Each structure stands twice: as structure tokens, then as C-alpha cells.
């Protein structure tokens, strides 16, 4: 090799062309180049100094934002169970789509809207609503994604696609079919902007799904979980590389209601195709066993985000399906109020058990003629017969003797005219008119003639079906009222409200209510063999307002039918109030109550039989126990 080198040297030395051998003039210029090189290096180093030493935090943060994605881990809401632990409201898995506003390109909005079947304007408004939130907070833009929509998102994960989209696992509320207990349960929905501005919702943030009505709203804190968060490292294609932080979601707690699905279903079926409400309570503790309001809505429509056309349909429906009639319908109770007038008369001493009235089919009071509902009249009527036959003339007289203020006092004592305090939002109060009330409301004196209407549950008097069941239940218990509630064992047990009434007076009234059902009274349709059912019918004009009554509309409206019943009469376990709007006659509401009461006792004997069978299996044959629920003769 050295030989080769030498040869080359020798070959090159006598070069054909004389190369200029003097490199000296270049010396100064080479030095100049060295300075230039130094300048270039300083220029480059200053660039790194600027980025790495002057403000590295700025770039570190941006590198983190590049690669660290915070994804919400949505917490499932607690299930809602009936009193036996059967699931009423469950969750099911679905995918929700979240959008990272940080990475959103405005020109992608139409593409996203088209690919996911969203309305573009709605999507834009939605993003606008979140303008006040930090941009790194993702926004859920669609729930319940279909397979095709999931595929659309998956296909656009790359940076040139729609990297701002991300799928998260969500738990969607699954409500029972056929609107079962829809008004009791309520529904969930995304917190609205108006709600966010009110102090009640201070702890919520945009995008939170909250209980909007019913139990879902009342026990939102109990049912809702705490969302977790997953911090993942993603690469430039948006693929997850590593989980760097995980805060587990805390699921919401389950909630057990006092509702008995067996009774609820019976009450729902009884109300099928009708307008009105049914409330069943256990008067011994205030537990709500069933609560129905018709017409109903489908809470599943709300479980995602309700479509605006569905919403419009619901709120424009003149029958107002969103109204929970069981606690919000305020209507004249009609004759179902008579037991309380009777009680007021007895307690105040205005009448006694010997008080009798002859009913010729009507009577005049203060210059006005008041009809009885039976044209030919009831003949001589005492308290018992008055209740059994629901004689209006008898109660006109009782009311007239008692006076409005004593009627109001005992009505309020029974729970009318104020909220029962049930654990549902937006309970209505109803109205118990009195001279004070009239002065407060209208700055007018009470006219004694007005008392006559109130005495048969008309006039300004309005009650809710819940109030009626509550009041009658307490009366049947001899003056012990337990606050109605829908949730078992939550918080401490509340002592009942006990009224100082003469138990004899109460039992006289209750005996009248026994007669209504069992002695050929107006409520004979509620009769059940082997069970002593008590009850009272009522039919009331829909509008107590005279003006409405005289209008054409008023004539078109049919009377509302009421029935309130309880059983067994002497030691009530269940009280049921039914409102059948437009049912005309109270006795048409009686079968609804009868069905629910029957379902209650049927179930009880089934359970007892199963218990006996179980005991027999375990301990051998037992002497048949005297059934405590057996009907009294």
C-alpha cells in the first residue's frame, strides 16, 4: 500500500500543469472564515439558550399538553331498587364522544357534525356554552354512539384526521319500559346553563349529568358518583402508549325505595288509558308503596340528551305528561273531604252522634239553594248514613254549624293546605280556605255561604292525591300522621305528628267509611271478600271557579272522580287514594283502589304461605298460626 502511495506521489510531483504552490494569500481569508464559523456557532448556541435555558417551562408544558391527555372516567349512578331489592333503574354501557376544544380546528366542525349525525348549529352552540371553561377540559358532544359512529371516530384518529375526538366509556341510565313509575323516578339530564347560574347547582360544572326530576333529582347526591380521571400518554397518532395517572371513579350508591313493584304495576295497569293519579301509603310509617301519575312520559327519552322535537311534544301536550299529578295536581276533593268535615263537627262540638238532618234533595242557605247529589233526597240522615250515602244536605248543615275556621283547623291538622314533606321536588300545597286565608288572599271577608261549598269539598278547597291519602291514613290511625317518604332507611326515623283528637270521634268517622264500602254505600265497588276495606268516594267539579263553570269549556269538562280507601279498617296497613280525572263519578275510581289493596293482601298471603312452607321445610309441621291480617268480621 505504501508503494502505491509513493507511486502516486511520484506521479503527481511532475504534474503536467503547474499548480500554484503558494497558499499564503489564502491565510487571512481562512482566519476570516474561522471568525465566521465562531459567529455561526454562537448564533446556534444562542438559539438553544433561548429555548432551553430562558423559558424551558413554557416548552415543557407544551410538550406535556402534546402528549398527556386527561380523559374523564365517568362514574355510574347508583341503581334504584324497589322495597324488595328489585332493580327499577339500571345502567347500561355505552360510548360517549368527547371533543378536546384545545385541538379543535374550526373547519372540522361541519365534518364532525356530518359524520356523527349532529346538528351543526346545535354543536356550535354547545361549544359556545363551554366558552367559560378552560380549554383543556373536554366536552361531551354525543352519547350512545352507534357502531357506525364509533367506526367514524376510530377511522379519524390520525393527526390529519379528527384528533380532537375521543371516545369514553359511559353509563347510560336505563329506565323501565312503559313509563313505569316515571314520575317518581324522574330522569337525568345535562345540567343547563340556567341551572348553573342558580345557587342550588353551584357545585356542578357544565356537562355534568344530574338528576332533573323525581327521585333522581331529590337524591342526586346519593346516586351520583364522583368521576375519575385517566391521564394517558399518547403519541402523535393519538394512540395510547401508557397510563400515567389514574383516579378511579367512585360509583354512585344504590338507593332502595319504599315502592313495591307489585303494587306499582297493579296501580299502573288500573290507570292505563286514564288521566289521574294513584298514591298508596303505609299509614303505619309513611312509606309510599306505589305512586302513579297519568299520562306519563318515557324517561329514556331524557337519558341521553332529549331531542328538541321530543321535548316540544312533551311540553305542548295539553295533558302535561311531565306533571306528577300525585303530588302536583291541586283539585277539589269533593266528597272525600266529608270525613274531615264530620271530624271537625264532632271535635268542635258543633254536632254529636245524635245529630240528624232530613234531606229532601236540597236545602237553602243564606238565600241560595244547594242541591244534594240525589234528587229525591235521602230522608232522615245521621252521621253514619251521611257518610255512607254521601249526603250533601247533611254535610251542608254540619259545615254551617261548624263554621269555616273550625273546618280549616281540622283540615290543616289532617295535613291539607301544606306540603306533606314527601322526598320529591316540587310538591304542591293545595288550598284550605278560611276567613284568615280569604283576608290574606283577597282582602275580603268570608261569607258564610261559602262554607256550604267547602263542607262538601268544593269551593276554594284543593288537595293533592298524596295529601288525601296522607290525611285519610292518619285519620284511620286515630290521628297519627307519618311523613310520606319514598326512600327506606335514609336518615333517622322521624317521629309521627300526633293530633289530640278524641279516638271515639275518629272511630265514628272510620265506621262511616266502613259503611261506604260494606253497607251498600257509594263505594261498594271497592269491596273485597275477606278484607275489611274502608273508603270514601268523591266527585268534584274540575274548576271550582264559577266563571269557568259557566263557560263553554267548563261544560265540556267532566267531573273528577276520587276514591280514597284503606284496609283493614281497624288497624290500617295500606291507604290508597285514586284520582280519575274526568271519571265523573267517585264509584268509578273505587275499583282502582280496590285492585291495589287486593294486590297488597294477595302478596302478603303469598309471602306468608312461602314463609310457612319454609318453616315447615326447616322445622317440620307447625300448628297453623292465626293470621294477624285476617279480616275482622
Amino acid at each position, binding site marked *: *500500500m*505504501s508503494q*502505491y*502511495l*509513493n507511486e*502516486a*506521489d511520484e*506521479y*503527481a*510531483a511532475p*504534474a*503536467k*500543469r503547474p*499548480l*500554484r*504552490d*503558494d*497558499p499564503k*494569500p*489564502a*491565510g487571512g*481569508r*481562512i482566519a476570516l*472564515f*474561522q471568525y*465566521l*464559523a*465562531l459567529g*455561526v*456557532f454562537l*448564533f*446556534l*448556541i444562542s*438559539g*438553544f*439558550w*433561548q*429555548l*432551553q*435555558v430562558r*423559558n*424551558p417551562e*413554557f*416548552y*415543557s408544558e*407544551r*410538550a*406535556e399538553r*402534546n*402528549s398527556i391527555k386527561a380523559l374523564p372516567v365517568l362514574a355510574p349512578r347508583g341503581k334504584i331498587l324497589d322495597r324488595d331489592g328489585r332493580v327499577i333503574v339500571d345502567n347500561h354501557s355505552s360510548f360517549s364522544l368527547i371533543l378536546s376544544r384545545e385541538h379543535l*380546528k374550526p373547519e372540522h366542525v361541519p365534518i364532525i357534525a356530518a359524520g356523527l349525525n349532529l346538528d351543526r348549529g346545535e354543536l356550535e352552540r354547545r361549544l359556545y356554552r363551554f366558552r367559560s371553561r378552560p380549554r383543556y377540559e373536554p366536552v361531551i358532544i354525543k352519547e350512545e354512539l352507534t357502531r357506525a359512529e364509533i367506526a367514524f371516530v376510530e377511522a379519524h384518529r390520525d*393527526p390529519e384526521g379528527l384528533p380532537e375526538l375521543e371516545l369514553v366509556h359511559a353509563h347510560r341510565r336505563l329506565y323501565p319500559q312503559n313509563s313505569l313509575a316515571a314520575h317518581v323516578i324522574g330522569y337525568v339530564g345535562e345540567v343547563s346553563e340556567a341551572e348553573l347560574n342558580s345557587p342550588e347547582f353551584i357545585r356542578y360544572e357544565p356537562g355534568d349529568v344530574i338528576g332533573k326530576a323525581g327521585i333522581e333529582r331529590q337524591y342526586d347526591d346519593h346516586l351520583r358518583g364522583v368521576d375519575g380521571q385517566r391521564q394517558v*400518554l*399518547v*403519541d*402523535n*397518532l393519538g394512540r395510547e*402508549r401508557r397510563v400515567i395517572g389514574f383516579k378511579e371513579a367512585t360509583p354512585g350508591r344504590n338507593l332502595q325505595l319504599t315502592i313495591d313493584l307489585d303494587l306499582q304495576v297493579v296501580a299502573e295497569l288500573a290507570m292505563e288509558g286514564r288521566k289521574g293519579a294513584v298514591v298508596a301509603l303505609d299509614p303505619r310509617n309513611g312509606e309510599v308503596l306505589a305512586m302513579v301519575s297519568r299520562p306519563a312520559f318515557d324517561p329514556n327519552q331524557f337519558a341521553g340528551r332529549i331531542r328538541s322535537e321530543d321535548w316540544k311534544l312533551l311540553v305542548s301536550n295539553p295533558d302535561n305528561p311531565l306533571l306528577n299529578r300525585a303530588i302536583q295536581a291541586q283539585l277539589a276533593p269533593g266528597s272525600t273531604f266529608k270525613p274531615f268535615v264530620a271530624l271537625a263537627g264532632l271535635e268542635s262540638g258543633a254536632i254529636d252522634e245524635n245529630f240528624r238532618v232530613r234531606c229532601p234533595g236540597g236545602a237553602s242557605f243564606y238565600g241560595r239553594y244547594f242541591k244534594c247529589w240525589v234528587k229525591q233526597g235521602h230522608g232522615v240522615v245521621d252521621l253514619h248514613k251521611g257518610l255512607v250515602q254521601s249526603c250533601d244536605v247533611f254535610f251542608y248543615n254540619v259545615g254551617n254549624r261548624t263554621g269555616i275556621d273550625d273546618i280549616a283547623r281540622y283540615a290543616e291538622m289532617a295535613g291539607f293546605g301544606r306540603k306533606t314533606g314527601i322526598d320529591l321536588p316540587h310538591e304542591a300545597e293545595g288550598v284550605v280556605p278560611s276567613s284568615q286565608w280569604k283576608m290574606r288572599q283577597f282582602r275580603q271577608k268570608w261569607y258564610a255561604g261559602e262554607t256550604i261549598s267547602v263542607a262538601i269539598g268544593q269551593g276554594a278547597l284543593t288537595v293533592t292525591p298524596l295529601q288525601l291519602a296522607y290525611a285519610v291514613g292518619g285519620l284511620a290511625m286515630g290521628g297519627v300522621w307519618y311523613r310520606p317518604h319514598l326512600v327506606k332507611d335514609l336518615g333517622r326515623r322521624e317521629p309521627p305528628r300526633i293530633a289530640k283528637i278524641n279516638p271515639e270521634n275518629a272511630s265514628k268517622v272510620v265506621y262511616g267509611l266502613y259503611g261506604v264500602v260494606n253497607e251498600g254505600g257509594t263505594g261498594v265497588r271497592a269491596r273485597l271478600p275477606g278484607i275489611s276495606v274502608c273508603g270514601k268516594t268523591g266527585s268534584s267539579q274540575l274548576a271550582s271557579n264559577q266563571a269557568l263553570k259557566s263557560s263553554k269549556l267548563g261544560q265540556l269538562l267532566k267531573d273528577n272522580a276520587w276514591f280514597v280507601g284503606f284496609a283493614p279498617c281497624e288497624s290500617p296497613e295500606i291507604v290508597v287514594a285514586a284520582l280519575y280525572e274526568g271519571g265523573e263519578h267517585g264509584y268509578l275510581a273505587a275499583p282502582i283502589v280496590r285492585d291495589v289493596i287486593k294486590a297488597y293482601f294477595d302478596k302478603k298471603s303469598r309471602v306468608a304461605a312461602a314463609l310457612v312452607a319454609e318453616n315447615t321445610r326447616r322445622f317440620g309441621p307447625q300448628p297453623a298460626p292465626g293470621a294477624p291480617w285476617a279480616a275482622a268480621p
Partner: protein
Amino acid sequence: MARYRSLRDFDWPLVVIALAICAMGILQIYSATIGTVWAEAWWRQCLFVGGGMVLLWLGASLDYHTLINQAPVYYWASMGGLVAVLFLGKEVSGGRRWIPLAGGFHLQVSEFVKVVLILLLARYLADLKGDRLQARDLLKLGALTALPAVLVMKQPDLGTALSYLPILAMGIFLAGLRWQHAAAMALVGLLALPLGWHFLKDYQKARLVTFLDPSRDPRGAGYQVIQSQIAVGAGGMWGKGVTQGSQTQLRFLPVPHTDFIFSAFAEEHGFVGVVVMLGLYFLLLMQVVQNAQMAPDRAGVYVVMGIAALLLFHLLVNIGMVVGRMPVTGIPLPLMSYGGSSIFSWFLMLGLVNNVRLRRFVN
């Protein structure tokens, strides 16, 4: 004793510095490609450096005078190669730059044209008499440089085409220039700017526009610049450590083993690593320049200084791009970026530097 002399007189510091840079490059390639389809690249780069060592020795063996004399042959042969690339080249992401060879290796002819151009310009300039270049000489030199530049631009590869200019500029600078000619060239250059703009491809225009304002299109053309700056900045003073840079590892940084290797290096090794690395490059450059100062004749000066100018140009454009102070041109970083053609041509050039050095004692 020629052999003994040659080994002892080799510029060992230069070789050691170059190998140190290569080693850092291989480490960075390893770190940047871990878990990707390029995971084998570091090993291939080792082989390239090994081959480069052979080329280094070859480049130093044949007397550079001989090589210079044969330069026209190489020149026209490589022009043929460039034309062949345009027709036979393998198309990768919209450019034809490589000629496929056996064994999955692709030859990037334009890299080797640099060496040839250095030799050819040295041959022409060394023959000239007088202290200043004549207009005729300038035109001839310009034409000789423009021919490969235009062919490479056709590929299209603006960065490599531009890298031929510093060789020409250094030659003219060393040979001496009349101020009238300098003024005329500046004027022509200015006039050519709008014209040149017209001939640029759309993405090239976008790159230049983005260079002036990266935030204008942060997801498109500005993406590379912004991501590179983020990577560098996130490195901070001490760096995130090998294989720990999120920008590099999660591929937010484009091509972190080739054009943006210094960005990846800066993220994982921090400002301290950058200063060390730039120090190595500076030493390398100064070592090359020192050999020019010791060259036995003008031809040697032109060869070595052409290489020095090319090296400085590459460092300025590539590293300047990494910190956002130069537009994105896609030229590799000498000795660090992954790529056989680049490694080979640089070791060949370092061989030429040694070639000149070995013959500094004219006998």
C-alpha cells in the same frame, strides 16, 4: 517508510472527534427509533460508520493531485448519475433521490456530487493566475455549480442543491473577487429571488412562509418547526435522559433519527449536551481549517476549505432549523443523521482532508 509516516501523520484528533460525534449520533438513533420500524437503524449506522472508516482511508490514499486531475471524469460521471436518478430513482415521499442498489441499500448520488464538485472547483481555481477572478471565470464556475444544483432541485431536493453553493462561495472567496463582480452577483441574486420563488414547489414555499411565521399554520407546514422547538425547549438545562424525551419517543417530532436528530438530542440531553455537541463540531471544523492552513499548495487549500464551508453550511442550516432560526430544508446533520450516503460522503471528505495533510511536506 512512507507507510509509517502516513499513519503517524494522520489527523488522529480529527478522526477521534468525528467518531465521537458518530457515536453520539448512533446513541441518539437508537433512542429515537426504539420500538419503531426503524429500530434496526442504529446497527446499520454502525456498519455505515465502519464502511466510512474504509472510505476515510481510501480518500487519504490516492494523492489528491491525482484525484483533482481526474475530477472532470468524476464530474461528468456523477452528472450522468443525477440524470439517471431522475429517471430510475426510487420515489420516496414525493421525491426521487435514491438509486436502489443491491442489498436494500439506496445510493443518494447528490451526496457524492459534493465531493466531486469540491475537487472540480479546486482544480479550476488552482490553475488560475492573478489575485482576482475574471468575469469569465465566475461564469464558468457558476455554470459548473449550477448544473448539478439544477438537476438536484429537479428531484426535488432544495436543501442539497443549496449546499453546493457554499463550496462555490468559498472557492470564489479564497480566489479573490472584484467588488464590481460581488455587487453584480448580489444584484443578480436579488433579481433572481422572485424568479426563484416562482420555481419553488408549493411545499417549499409553505416551508419558507412558515419559517417566517410558524404559528400561521401550527398543524400543517409549521408543525415540524413548532414540534422541534417544543422538543428542544422541553429538554431544558439537563435534558430528559436517553429514551425519555416525550417529543421524540411519542413521535411528535418528525424524523427524529435523520433531519431532526439534533432536536431529539437536545430534548434528551439538554442545553449541556448541546453545548458539548456543538463544541465537538466546532473542534472538528477548526481541525479541518487547520489542515487547510498547513496545506502544501492552493489546490489543497481549496479542497479542505471547500469541505469546511460545506460542513459549516450543513451545521448552520440543519441545527438552525432545529431551533427555528432557519427554514425547514431537509438536509442531514453531518455524521449524526442516519443515512449511509451522507456518512460515506462525509468520511470520504474527511479522508480528503487527511490526504492534503499527509502531503504537506512536499518532497
